[in-house]
């Protein structure tokens, strides 16, 4: 039970990271940015490439610094990349339709989402790829006794398409003796250093995600409440014409909002893929939809609402099927968690469209 609750909260924290971007963008231009999930996916892919190819974890520093640094690098790349993609998308696709009405803008957003998904398929293939596990690098000379776990080396493979792919090759099995003969063999094969995979502890990843949310929430709160740009965002979201009369360049403010929302989603993207162990071009679709539901549950347009909504949805997705399984003996309950999320969305929309923390705004007739 506690385990399910913690899982739910960690998942909810990831939803919250994505929901923040939805809610900020909706707040400022009243657009359900369907492509937000694709910014998230793009960030996750960048993080994937950094973890797999950049080799930050090979830095000759005491453990666990190299591993931590590699994740910091992955998160930075993911956030900046997702932010940049969001800014470009806003400029090319959303600015031209900003005055064309909400429905036209929403259709455009749906199209952008599909286009980005399919471009990602073109670029990186449709198949899911394993998200790299943390690697601990060891000098061949330092090996002693028996191998505590499988040892791997990196092997670069050229595929028929001409692209270079890095593969993990097992060079020593767990428990095998690491005698001089083995060391000599490894060196002869060119393996100066080998690594072992550090198993990802679920408790750790959960803790990390929740901690990240705990750190990010006040930063965002500060950015939006206290900084000049944050105040301008709130001003534009309330009355963009009045904001223009203050000398606010609303295009810049909107671009920053997209950047900030996608930046945070990039963090969520890496966290999500680390938790699930894989990444694919469709990675963004379902979490994106879920995050939108979270934003609606919390009250779209409200930043604390997005965080609360994310946590509520994550917990509900974990605890409701748990209750159904334990209480009613329905074994397949977990397969239905996505349907539960959508049903929750419809219920919220029908009975309390302003969400938990949203303010009631009368639609203009």
């Amino acid at each position, binding site marked *: 039970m506690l385990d399910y609750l913690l899982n739910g909260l960690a998942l909810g924290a990831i939803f919250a990271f994505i929901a923040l971007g939805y809610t900020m963008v909706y707040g400022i231009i009243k657009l359900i940015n369907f492509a937000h999930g694709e910014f998230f996916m793009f960030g996750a892919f960048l993080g994937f490439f950094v973890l797999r190819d950049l080799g930050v974890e090979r830095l000759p520093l005491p453990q666990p610094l190299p591993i931590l640094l590699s994740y910091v690098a992955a998160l930075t790349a993911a956030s900046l990349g997702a932010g940049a993609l969001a800014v470009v998308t806003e400029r090319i696709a959303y600015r031209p*339709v900003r005055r064309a009405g909400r429905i036209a803008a929403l259709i455009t957003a749906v199209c952008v989402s599909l286009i980005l998904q399919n471009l990602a398929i073109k670029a990186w293939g449709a198949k899911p790829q394993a998200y790299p596990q943390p690697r601990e690098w060891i000098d061949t000379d330092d090996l002693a006794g028996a191998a505590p776990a499988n040892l791997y080396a990196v092997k670069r493979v050229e595929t028929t398409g001409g692209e270079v792919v890095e593969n993990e090759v097992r060079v020593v099995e767990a428990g095998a003796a690491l005698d001089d003969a083995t060391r000599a063999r490894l060196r002869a094969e060119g393996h100066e250093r080998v690594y072992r995979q550090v198993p990802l502890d679920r408790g750790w990843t959960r803790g990390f995600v929740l901690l990240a949310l705990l750190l990010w929430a006040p930063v965002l709160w500060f950015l939006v409440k206290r900084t000049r740009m944050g105040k301008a965002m709130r001003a534009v979201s309330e009355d963009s014409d009045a904001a223009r009369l203050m000398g606010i360049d609303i295009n810049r403010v909107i671009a920053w909002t997209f950047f900030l929302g996608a930046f945070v989603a990039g963090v969520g993207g890496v966290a999500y893929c680390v938790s699930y162990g894989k990444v694919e071009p469709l990675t963004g679709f379902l979490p994106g939809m879920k995050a939108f539901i979270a934003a609606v549950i919390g009250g779209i347009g409200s930043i604390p609402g997005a965080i609360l909504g994310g946590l509520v949805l994550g917990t509900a997705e974990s605890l409701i099927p748990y209750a159904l399984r334990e209480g009613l003996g329905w074994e397949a309950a977990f397969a239905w968690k996505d349907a539960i999320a*959508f049903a929750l969305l419809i219920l919220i*929309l029908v009975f309390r469209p302003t969400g938990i923390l949203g303010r009631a705004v009368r639609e203009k007739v």
Partner: protein
Amino acid sequence: MSGELLFWLNLLVTVGIYTLLAVSLNLINGHAGMFHLGHHGFWALGAYAATWLTLNAASLPGPLLYVLSLLLAMAVAAIGGLTIGIPCLRLRGDYLAIATLGFGEIVRIAVQNSPHDFLGGSLGTKVPRVLMEVTRTTQVPFRFLTLAIVAVACAAAILVFRNFLRSLPGRRLLAVAQDETAAGLLGIDPTRSKVLAFVMGSAVAGLAGGLYAHYMGGINPLNFNFMEMVKMFLVIVLGGMGSLSGCVIGAFLVVATEQLLNRAPEAIASWWQVLFPLILALMIVFRPQGIFGRKEITDMIRAWRRSPA
């Protein structure tokens, strides 16, 4: 020769099915002005309802089973439309869009998780070839027969919708779409008008689903994903929101482009997935009224005849 004929027959049948989907989506989105993004859900409901009956009433004669399963498809989809329609129609604009999209996804998740012996689950299921009793083969005669049935269904649907839109309830619906508040002040019950449109639209989408299942001989949840929804949207945006004849042209353009591209090498064909959302986005920006706008082909012919020279 026969291969070429089969290709074009297949293309036309698919155009017909998309026409049914498009006219019914258009009734809801175009004429009734509700932004509905869950049409793939009704389509799936119809397809699965027809499949279920066909699997479970195998003792009936084929053609009878075919007709009954289509009727059931319409009924189930219409009930789906009613169930989702009543609570959601109080919502407006993008909220309605998201709620109906949620519905479409729920349908897909439901069939995906259904027990394998019930609806085939995520692997899909075969649909017994009940029309085989008439055509003996699934080649040319089968496609000809299906094409004839689909054509009749399209003609019937367009005729029914056209007459509906000219009738009093139809006029009420158009009034509600124009200005809900004003229509309400005139004593029109907006929710009733909208639910009616929703039920009619979903029934026809269900019919399209039934025809599709029988034609394909097998269905799986991936046939009814959100991409298909966006494709239907492209059809009605190309044809013009609110134009019935536009739907036929739009369906032809979209399906023909897709299928002709599919004959190209894979490297080119796969760009279709990028191309069609791009076309839709460009249409929305540069010609949101579509090719026909709200006009019908018959209006244009009339105008052209009347014009001197």
